[in-house]
């Protein structure tokens, strides 16, 4: 009798999925031997809308609606690109406030991912606890921007709101609370067998595969590939606020969790440094003119590298907006990780990638 290969789908609706994505696994017994993916379930044509329906100064608000979790990174990457075409200079205070929001966004996005990883290990209580603690980060974001999810905080020329001493105090309090909690999670994720032993050696992406398939973000850093756009660009002064790259080893789910936990701790430190050294000045500078030329901006979103390419012809509408989202670029790497894994591990592996389908299909 020859080898029997069975096709098993995961998605587009599945209990472990937050958003629609479909994988079709070709399995031999329990082992996955081949994978095909379908990612376009939530395609909304945002790239087209940005060039036909909305003028360049309204686009930051359009691209923010690609994804709720990464709203701030999308609008920030776009505005940075547009500002470079308009040749405007943003004040240092505005840059610091932008970094503050991006880092807060990273903290709560990583917490969401960790909670889902815990849930997929069968550890429901941990999921509830992390999600409960995550709410405090959302609260301070609401205090800063006036809204809980859609921040609409960054606009061309700077940021829309300033922070007051009251808010600063509240942020410091919440950051201290989250730091204490994160140390607790670190303890839990390294010593609790459901989260440590169970995840070691599962869903491995080797360093060579990470290079070959251009893995990005925590997925790459967990495999030992030292790439982070925060250290590869200079329009946001990350070197001034104590950014440290954390590179893991092993490239398995466990390693990805640990990288994310340390990134949360680093982001907390960075937020505190931002508050400590917040420069004085205006938060908005007026920018005039119409975007002409082309610009390419990369920004480290919570899930990895986000790239915006825009081209303007001196008119109110841009002629091209290209958005490369982190999950979209990582899908070939995802597929590589699935090959050779057990089918039963697939939901846990998928959750550890922290996929964002709204970003992918845009």
């Amino acid at each position, binding site marked *: 009798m020859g080898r029997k290969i069975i096709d098993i789908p995961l998605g587009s609706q599945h209990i472990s999925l937050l958003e629609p994505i479909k994988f079709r696994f070709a399995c031999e017994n329990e082992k996955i031997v081949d994978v095909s993916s379908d990612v376009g379930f939530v395609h909304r044509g945002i790239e087209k809308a940005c060039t036909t329906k909305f003028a360049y100064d309204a686009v930051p*608000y359009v691209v923010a609606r690609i994804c709720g979790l990464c709203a701030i990174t999308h609008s920030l990457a776009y505005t940075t690109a547009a500002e470079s075409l308009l040749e405007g200079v943003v004040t240092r205070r505005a840059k610091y406030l932008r970094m503050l929001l991006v880092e807060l966004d990273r903290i709560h996005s990583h917490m969401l991912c960790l909670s889902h990883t815990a849930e997929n290990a069968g550890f429901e209580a941990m999921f509830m606890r992390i999600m409960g603690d995550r709410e405090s980060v959302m609260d301070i974001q609401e205090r800063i921007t006036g809204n809980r999810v859609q921040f*609409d905080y960054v606009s061309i020329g700077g940021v829309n709101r300033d922070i007051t001493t009251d808010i600063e105090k509240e942020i410091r309090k919440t950051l201290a609370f989250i730091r204490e909690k994160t140390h607790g999670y670190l303890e*839990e994720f390294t010593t609790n067998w459901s989260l440590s032993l169970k995840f070691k050696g599962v869903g491995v992406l080797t360093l060579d595969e990470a290079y070959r398939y251009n893995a990005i973000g925590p997925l790459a850093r967990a495999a030992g590939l030292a790439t982070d756009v925060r250290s590869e660009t200079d329009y946001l002064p990350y070197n001034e606020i104590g950014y440290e790259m954390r590179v893991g080893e092993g490239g398995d789910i466990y390693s990805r969790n640990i990288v994310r936990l340390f990134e949360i701790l680093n982001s907390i430190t960075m937020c505190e440094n931002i508050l400590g050294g917040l420069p004085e000045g205006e938060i908005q500078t007026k920018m005039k003119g119409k975007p002409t030329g082309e610009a390419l901006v990369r920004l480290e979103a919570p899930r990895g590298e986000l790239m915006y390419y825009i081209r303007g012809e001196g008119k109110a509408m841009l002629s091209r907006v290209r958005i490369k989202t982190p999950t979209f670029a990582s899908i070939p790497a995802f597929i590589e990780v699935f090959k050779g894994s057990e089918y039963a591990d697939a939901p846990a592996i998928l959750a550890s990638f922290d996929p964002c389908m709204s970003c992918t299909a845009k």
Partner: protein
Amino acid sequence: MWYSVKKAFTNLLSPPQTIDYPATPIKRVERYRGLIEYGEEHCIYCLKCEKACPPGAILFTHTDTPTENPKNKKSLAYDYNPHLCIYCGECVRACPKPNEALWQSEKKPGIGVKEDRVNERWFEVEGRKGS
């Protein structure tokens, strides 16, 4: 592992994360981004807010019964759709007289029900604008 066990027992005695809604009201933060409000008597009809609004939720259309504001030379009327608005505040930042002619309040919009003809009314406004 012991940390988890300890945590499991302390969790039994800790209060829940959720609030007792609707008995306990939801805490509304200060400077919450709410409805855009308009003070007609201070408006100078520069139409900057209309131009700045990303979704086009503010429209000035021609009317036969204009207000008595001397600045309103083209007999325009202000229309605002709270259900289209994204509450970003671009219009207030564009306004030459913020806090007098246009400001962002902390009020919430009402629920858009069929009886209010939310959509139909707005399509009529947009139709007037287009013609």
